[in-house]
């Protein structure tokens, strides 16, 4: 794009040298360590990069139902957290993007805020709500839904509830931004042609916001797989997830070899799951049946032309 052919080779060397640190930083502290972790997951003792004692012993040690159940539990947590976030977040995004008029900017700001505030503090704040003497129990007792206070803290319930609300903005914001890009004329056309609100939602809005759903799903899925803070604080630390297991290996038993093997294994599982979900989304976004006949992209173009023509 930018022509630098006028530069002397000396100047080009200088440019290269000052532009390099940022790239080097990433390589040195992210990609090299990543390879390093994979390498030490295959050895038993560090012998300064001599590849002779490569072994699968660490992985054999991990071949244990305990570790598998931890990984499966984390996959469950990540997947269902993303799913619940979608169910709860989609109506919110829909309201913000297409229905809200007054307070819209304020509501949007209130959603961006938790995105950037301290995760730890947000998780901690839930203690006041979920405690045995906390507000949820008080309210439920007063309404009369329950007769004795619920034990929510230190159970998987607490983890799922807190994860849901901590990760909700990660789901709502991408969906919101994909919905704001939908051409309003398409929605009008849909209702003019006799579709009910629900039909418009199902046949027009939902397919056109699929890219936002996909982004949001991964934004929730991937970090919740490795979530450490919320299970550690609100789960009482008794129920192990991938995050807690990794930190146990590295910080408490200091068994870096087994820990690396576990990290690599769970990382591979995460990639596999993410790939699977990606394929599902790709299948969904392919036009088929009714939506195929009136393909969304064609619609957008036509309606854009139409709106220009009207002006």
């Amino acid at each position: 794009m930018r022509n630098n052919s006028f530069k002397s080779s000396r100047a080009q060397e200088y440019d290269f040298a000052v532009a390099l640190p940022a790239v080097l930083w990433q390589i040195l502290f992210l990609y090299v360590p990543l390879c390093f972790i994979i390498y030490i997951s295959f050895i038993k003792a560090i012998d300064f990069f001599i590849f002779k004692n490569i072994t699968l012993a660490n992985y054999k040690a991990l071949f244990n139902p305990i570790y598998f159940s931890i990984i499966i539990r984390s996959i469950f947590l990540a997947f269902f957290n993303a799913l619940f976030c979608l169910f709860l977040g989609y109506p919110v995004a829909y309201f913000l993007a297409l229905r809200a008029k007054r307070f819209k900017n304020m509501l949007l700001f209130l959603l961006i805020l938790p995105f950037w505030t301290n995760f730890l503090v947000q998780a901690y704040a839930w203690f006041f709500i979920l405690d045995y003497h906390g507000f949820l129990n008080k309210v439920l007792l007063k309404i009369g839904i329950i007769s004795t206070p619920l034990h929510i803290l230190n159970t998987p319930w607490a983890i799922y509830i807190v994860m849901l609300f901590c990760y909700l903005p990660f789901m709502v914001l991408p969906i919101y931004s994909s919905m704001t890009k939908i051409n309003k004329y398409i929605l009008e056309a849909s209702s003019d042609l006799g579709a009910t609100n629900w039909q418009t939602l199902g046949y027009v809005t939902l397919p056109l916001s699929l890219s936002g759903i996909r982004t949001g799903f991964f934004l929730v899925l991937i970090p919740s797989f490795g979530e450490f803070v919320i299970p550690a604080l609100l789960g009482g630390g008794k129920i192990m997830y991938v995050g807690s297991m990794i930190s146990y290996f590295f910080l408490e038993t200091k068994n870096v070899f087994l820990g690396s093997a576990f990290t690599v294994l769970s990382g591979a599982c995460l990639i596999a799951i993410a790939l699977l979900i990606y394929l599902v989304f790709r299948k969904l976004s392919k036009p088929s049946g009714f939506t195929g006949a009136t393909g969304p992209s064609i619609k957008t173009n036509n309606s854009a032309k139409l709106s220009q023509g009207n002006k």
Partner: protein
Amino acid sequence: MELRRRISPYILPFFVSLVYLALYAPIIVLIVFSFNKNPLSFKWHGFTFEWYRELFSSVEIVQALKNSLIVAFSSVFLSITMALFYVFYGTSSFLHRLMLLFYGSLIAPEIVLAVCLLSIFTFFSIPLGITTLIVGHTLIGLAYVVPIIKTRYQEMDYRLIEASMDLGATESQTFYKIVIPILSPAIISAALLVLIVSLDDFLISFFCAGASTLTLPMYIFSEVRSGATPVVNALSTLLLVVSTLLILILTSLKLRTRIF
């Protein structure tokens, strides 16, 4: 049927307000209870500032605050500087094609980054402490800063740079006198983002700080784990207020930066 038609427009707003209630109720309760006289009860016992006073008289917390600030400002400085040099000077070599490298630390779960950093530090027996924290936070910071600055640099009118060079400015003069002032809104917003991310980061600090160094989120975590004290409520409130203020600055400056 009539009733259904009458209430149906209110269902969605009602649902949305319930979600917002669930998002904000815990935080509001936390803030209110940080002023509660009897900290260990879930009843209101009267208003007090005592926990805030205790906050600033605790040596441990003040030290943690200092550590947090040192780490945050160093990583802001480092990531902004490196990103600027990368964006401006990187165009003349293949380096500008390596943009994707910077997204890696955003995509991977944070615990993987933390473990990676820890393993490399222990392998080279680098003592854990402030320096390793700065390294980790700068790694995350770059992932936020480079895309922001790069986008704005590409949107910038390139003729200004050409004009500057034609009029006899050297490349570094152009960099300092033309590019940096024009990019300053992007630089400010990127710096604020890194500041927020670094001040709030827990996981990387938890792994890379070692036994002796404590940052504010780490202090909160260890206190909550061993049974919360009222000081933690005050400290959490303070952290919330600081990030809210930073976000307010960020949005009110109209810096045109997408912060989500």
